[in-house]
């Protein structure tokens, strides 16, 4: 039996929607492209950097290259796009930008700890030569030098590395550095045993930051003080007393989180929110005739310089003596010492001992590649 033909009205009713749907889907990519181009040029025209033409030769393409660089850097919507991609990267692929390794259970590690140096032995020898030179320079002024090496966070918490097991060339790195220093006759303090032991008492490194926690800093300071005392350094151990007070908690903006550009979803997607106590250390036996000398000077990196970890406070407390902090943030391993030696500090304060805090991850970095 023949099916009844649809009426003209039925056909007309169906036809426009079908045609419209088909046409719409056919035209959609073109309309979408026009929309993108339109939005793009509107944003660009509203951006003042679009109209800034840099100097340089147009003939040889210098000016255009500069213009494009400046144009890309100052795009109005650049940050939104970076965070869009950052969210996708982290939410779907559990990764951040180059520089961070995403471990398990909210732990992040800096890829600097895994950096491979093709000529690590040469870099190590170069740094060692500089350390020996510093040691001799200080010794000429009657000042002792002790090196303390902060182990890599990955070395202390390898159980959270996830799919990034420690590469073989990193596994022996701390031992090699220590051995090289001792062979050169440099007094060195190994912080690994103390930090590994203290893990059971609490977190010694932050999950989202490359640095140690105040507990880690305190543990390291105690281990250092015990080692110095055991070695019989002629220092006024315990002659002063210091106490550390806690004034509430503060939120930590972990430095590794900079590698996760999550934009507006930062709060929702951030793997973990970390806090730390606000600590301050003060001398408790400061009388009218108290000794204000500083027998120890601390030179080092952000592990020592950043007041949030209170490493120098813990060191004062553990040593029972005052410590001058000449550490610098963000200047690498060698520059803080170069600055210290170039200053009048060694002469004016004339310490008995300089503690030079270095880090396992920064040690193999060639001096000329360190931070400016």
């Amino acid at each position, binding site marked *: 039996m023949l099916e009844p033909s649809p009426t003209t009205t039925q056909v007309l009713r169906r036809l426009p929607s079908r045609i419209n749907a088909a046409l719409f889907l056919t*035209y959609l990519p*073109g309309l979408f492209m026009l929309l993108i181009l339109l939005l*793009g040029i509107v944003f660009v025209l509203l951006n003042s950097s679009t109209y800034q033409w840099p100097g340089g030769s147009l003939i040889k393409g210098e000016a255009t290259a500069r213009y494009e660089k400046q144009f890309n850097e100052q795009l109005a919507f650049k940050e939104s796009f970076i965070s869009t991609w950052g969210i996708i990267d982290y939410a779907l692929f559990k990764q951040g930008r180059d520089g961070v390794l995403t471990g398990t259970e909210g732990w992040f590690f800096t890829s600097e700890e895994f950096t491979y140096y093709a000529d690590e032995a040469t870099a190590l020898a170069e740094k060692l030569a500089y350390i020996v030179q510093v040691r001799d320079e200080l010794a000429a002024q009657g000042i002792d030098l002790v090196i303390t090496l902060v182990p890599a966070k990955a070395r202390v918490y390898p159980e959270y590395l996830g799919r990034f097991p420690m590469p073989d060339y990193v596994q022996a790195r701390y031992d090699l550095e220590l051995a090289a220093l001792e062979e050169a006759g440099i007094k060195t303090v190994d912080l690994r045993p103390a930090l590994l032991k203290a893990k059971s008492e609490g977190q010694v490194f932050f999950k989202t930051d490359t640095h140690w926690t105040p507990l880690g800093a305190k543990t390291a300071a105690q281990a250092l003080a015990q080692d110095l005392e055991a070695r019989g350094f002629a220092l006024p151990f315990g002659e002063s007393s210091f106490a550390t007070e806690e004034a509430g908690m503060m939120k930590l903006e972990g430095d590794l989180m900079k590698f996760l550009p999550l934009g507006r979803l930062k709060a929702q997607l951030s793997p973990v929110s970390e806090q730390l106590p606000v600590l301050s250390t003060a001398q408790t036996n400061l009388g009218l005739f108290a000794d204000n000398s500083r027998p120890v000077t601390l030179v080092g990196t952000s592990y020592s310089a950043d007041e949030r970890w209170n490493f120098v406070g813990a060191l004062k407390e553990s040593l029972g003596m005052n410590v001058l902090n000449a550490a610098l943030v963000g200047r690498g391993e060698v520059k803080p010492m170069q600055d210290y030696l170039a200053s009048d500090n060694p002469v004016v304060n004339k310490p008995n001992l300089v503690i030079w805090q270095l880090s396992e991850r920064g040690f193999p970095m060639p001096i000329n590649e360190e931070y400016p």
Partner: protein
Amino acid sequence: MVFSTHLFLFVFLPLFLAVYYLLPFKARSAWILFASYAFYGWWRVDFLGLFFAVTLWSFIWGKRIASAPTQAIAKRALIIGMIGNFASLGYFKYFNFGLENLNAILQVLGSRPISLWQVILPIGISFYVFQAVSYLIDVYRKDVEAADNFWDFSAFIALFPQLIAGPILRYKDLVDQFKSRSHTMEKFSEGSMRFMMGFCKKVLIADAISPVVDLTLFHATPTMADAWLGAFVYTLQIFFDFSGYSDMAIGLGLMLGFRFKENFNHPYISRSIGEFWRRWHMSLSGWLREYLYYPLGGNRHGQYRTYFNAATVMILIGIWHGADWTFVIYGCIHSALVIRERHWIYTGRWKERPAIIGIASTMFFVILARVLFVSPDIFTAINVYKGILGFYGLGLSSFVAWQISNFQIFMIVFATVFVYAAPAWLKLLDSHKQKSQLQHSFLVLMPLFVLAIAKLSAQAFSPFLYFNF
């Protein structure tokens, strides 16, 4: 200027299209020409002179060929026209290479090396010179009339969508489209889709996996796993990079109403090297087939002459890509492989193999030869081959494994699946039953395009590999 930049996408392209569609048809070639010169001059204005000279030279000699009273005079005009074009290509592309080799020989002979200037390689020269030469030959063969409008001809040579990395267009294929072409929303939409596809291939895949190549191949002691992984990933990268560029070029052409010929046809499903070259960079292999292989006699003069002709084409393909011994050897290897296949065909030893064996064995040689393509010099290539053979150990180097990101692993797997699933997918799409539904699946490209723009912002500058050629 590069397609996958914000400047192209948000300034050049919208301004160009706005003016293009506001102008009457007659004025559009002039606008294409102006915009294409601005597009090229963004790199360096001084090399526009060379570009213009090649165009003018080819236009003049095209006229002379066409107006020659005898075939002999036309031939002479063709030879002069070709010499001029190839001389500019030879000087700008191969001068440094020639000088380096001459100095190496002089040093061996105990003479002092010659110290001369360094020549800068103009981007896209291999493409536009080949286009110009094809025009002269086509005019000589009377396949096409000599251009009578200099601006249309200049716009053909300069046409910015294909200017710096092809596909290599032929005047005879486009001349009618310069005179008349349609501009419809369907065509614009099709072009937009194609552009988006190319953009995603370039930014989301090729750029993402590119660091894996440097990481695995270019260190002192690549292990067997490093070297094979690097060579394989490079094989994927160059396909997505170059075919992505071609997709963008074809898409932009469609937005302007032009239809360019395809440049790729799923090359990695080829079952022989001969088939590979019929599917990879088809505009180049087609050019060489038409303007070199057939004039040399093709396969019409016996077995050994055929081998010679095929080998000549393959070696020239190698050298066309760059002035280095790596490219010469690359061409020689492909010559040897093509001759081997031809010989098997001549001697009746060629047997149709199961697809999987044919594809795997072809890919094996393609990947091996890619090492020469990616290596900056012959010594690096030798070192990678040592890695491939296991001279430096078997497993992945420990500093390599952790540096390959999850996204890169995903993209390597995705790209591999894409390469082999795409032909089947397109076949399915072509079947009438599913057509309308499957066509709409391409709409997924739109959000991917936005993601690709986002990724572009998040990454540093990403030049195209084929600019070097």
